[in-house]
């Protein structure tokens, strides 16, 4: 990336509050993690007291549970059921409203002067995991890299300030190391934090990714990182990598999946799959959406809403006469093949960043890494 000078600093835990304040002063809407309904979710925060201090999460196939750790570590959880995509690509978004008039209808483009939309506050994201950073980069390609750019995404994405947090421990379903997306953030952030708790000392190692990041840090009390600090950073990230229990071998994966479109495994996994669409809803890269038309009771106003959709629904592929992907097998195959094969053809990158959410939130515990391994090892 151009204009990036990587340098490493440290600041004490107490400075985290100043970071949030500084960002607010700079007119950012700060979004960070908080506890809600038994999960760690992301929402607007005003200070660090609402962060999930001392909490960690336990994740396995189909299971997610929070646990209190009796210490004051802020970022010792991995990923929750939500991702940052809900802020950049909202689950529901109004496209436009139109009105019935005595003479026809008026559409937003009726007037020569198109509607001017107000510029919303810029987002600052606090606590973005390396896998999720990559997920944002993947969605950038989807929404901004094609012949048509998504105006909603573009607006919400512009001017983001991103504070990444390197992972001190791997979640039970994580496999970012094998996907080359973590557990350490290497790019795509303004600043990246690594939390260190050494006896009584609680501080953050800070890597600066952009000039803006460096500028924001000027309002904080920072020190230059020492060799010991850098060694601690390295050690933490290595430990996390070693801890990671799952992996997905991506070698030659695209052609393996294309060539095995009739593998019996699709059918057998389909017999477990409930087509609930959870995996696509929690996935930070899935971008599919449908449109819903709503009219008020009088019929005088009609709205078009864009809503998240999933290739697991029957309607998704409906054309007059029936659905193209009628069987569960076909829909399940579409999901895996899209994430790990056709995505590469479409966007030049994999559609999976190894965050493991789809494994955690699958009610029957289907594991994408296991599926790929089975097909790879028993190619037809």
């Amino acid at each position, binding site marked *: 990336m151009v204009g990036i000078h990587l340098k490493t600093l440290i600041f004490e835990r107490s400075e985290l509050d100043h970071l949030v304040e500084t960002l607010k002063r700079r007119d950012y809407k700060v979004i960070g993690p908080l506890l809600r309904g038994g999960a760690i979710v992301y929402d607007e925060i005003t200070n660090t007291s609402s962060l999930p201090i001392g909490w960690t999460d336990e994740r396995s196939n189909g299971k997610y549970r929070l646990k209190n750790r009796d210490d004051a570590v802020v970022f010792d959880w991995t990923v929750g059921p939500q991702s940052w995509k809900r802020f950049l690509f909202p689950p529901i978004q109004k*496209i436009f409203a139109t009105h019935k008039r005595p003479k026809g209808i008026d559409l937003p483009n009726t007037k*020569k002067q198109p509607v001017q939309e107000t*510029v919303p506050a810029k987002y600052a994201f606090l606590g973005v995991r390396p896998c999720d950073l990559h997920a944002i980069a993947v969605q950038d390609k989807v929404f901004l890299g*094609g012949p*048509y750019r998504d*105006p909603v995404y573009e607006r919400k994405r512009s001017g983001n300030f991103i504070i990444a947090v390197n992972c001190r421990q791997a979640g039970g379903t994580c496999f970012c190391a094998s996907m080359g997306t973590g557990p350490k953030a290497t*790019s*795509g952030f303004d600043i990246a934090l690594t939390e260190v708790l050494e006896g009584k000392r609680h501080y953050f190692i800070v890597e600066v990714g952009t000039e803006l990041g460096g500028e924001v840090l000027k309002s904080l009390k920072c020190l230059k990182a020492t060799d010991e600090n850098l060694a601690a950073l390295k050690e933490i990230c290595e430990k996390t990598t070693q801890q990671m229990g799952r992996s997905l071998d991506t070698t030659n994966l695209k052609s393996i999946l294309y060539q095995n479109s009739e593998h019996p495994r699709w059918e057998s996994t389909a017999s477990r799959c409930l087509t609930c669409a959870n995996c696509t809803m929690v996935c930070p890269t899935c971008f599919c959406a*449908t449109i819903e038309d709503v009219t008020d009771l009088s019929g005088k106003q009609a709205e078009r809403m864009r809503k998240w959709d999933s290739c697991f629904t029957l309607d998704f592929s409906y054309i007059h006469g029936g659905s*193209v992907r009628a069987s569960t097998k076909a829909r399940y195959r579409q999901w895996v093949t899209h994430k790990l094969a056709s995505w590469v053809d479409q966007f030049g990158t994999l559609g999976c960043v190894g965050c493991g959410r789809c494994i955690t939130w699958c009610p029957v515990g289907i594991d994408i890494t296991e599926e790929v391994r089975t097909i790879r090892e028993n190619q037809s």
Partner: protein
Amino acid sequence: MATDPELLSLKVDYKWNPMLPWPFQIRRVKHETEDTFTIELQPLGALEEFAYQPGQFNMLYVYGVGEIPISISGDPANPRVLVHTTRAVGTVTKAMDKMKRGDILGIRGPYGTPWPIDQANGSDVVFVAGGIGLAPLRPALYEVVAHRELYGKVVLLYGTRTPLDVLFRQELENWRARFDLEIYVTVDRAMTGWRGNVGVVTNLIPRAPFDPRNTMAFVCGPEIMMRFTAMELHKRGVDNEHIFVSMERNMKCAIGLCGHCQFGSVFVCKDGPVFRYSEIKEMLVKWEI
């Protein structure tokens, strides 16, 4: 895998949202057959003309009901009128069928890849249409007829259900009367009194007058029909690379952002709907892809 900074540095254009339709007013409605109608539309507001290429489609929005992809069926030489021919099959198309002169539709487009007519210069051109598939081919026919001297033989093979379902009857008659166009129509079944062909459109291919080694074929119709047609054209000697088909998939955005139109690794809305047959041949025989 960081995001290309160029992607993010481009300026946000708040004024332009590709999901917003433009208002168009219906100037004329023509009922082609019992279930198929053609509407002529004129832009309202800021737009004056609507330029497009043969084979492209628009998203048509019916107030409060929904939005669907429909190919443009008019003459590209006349960008002041926008023409769509639609078969009423379901919610949105039936609502459209009820619309009258003066009513307003929302339109956005044109989208998708066109029929690559320019690649047919100097060769024979064969159009194979099935059912409503004649509508998306008509702009290409207009264009070829308008520059007739650029092509060798020009043949239209058109198959539909019954004689009552034949679209653009008058136009077909006019074209048939020309000495430089070969028009063949066949129906799946007919009552006596029909003097044309009965049988599937693929039956017309072996005897149609064109030189298979120097032919560009444009095929549009139900997927099964296109598959059999391409096979038959290939059997006759037409190179798979010279056969083009127009695909149909569910579409919500038409601009590559909603994921609905995925067909294997391609998006029908932006990589298609017109594809080179040789490029999608393998996917066409995969089930539920």
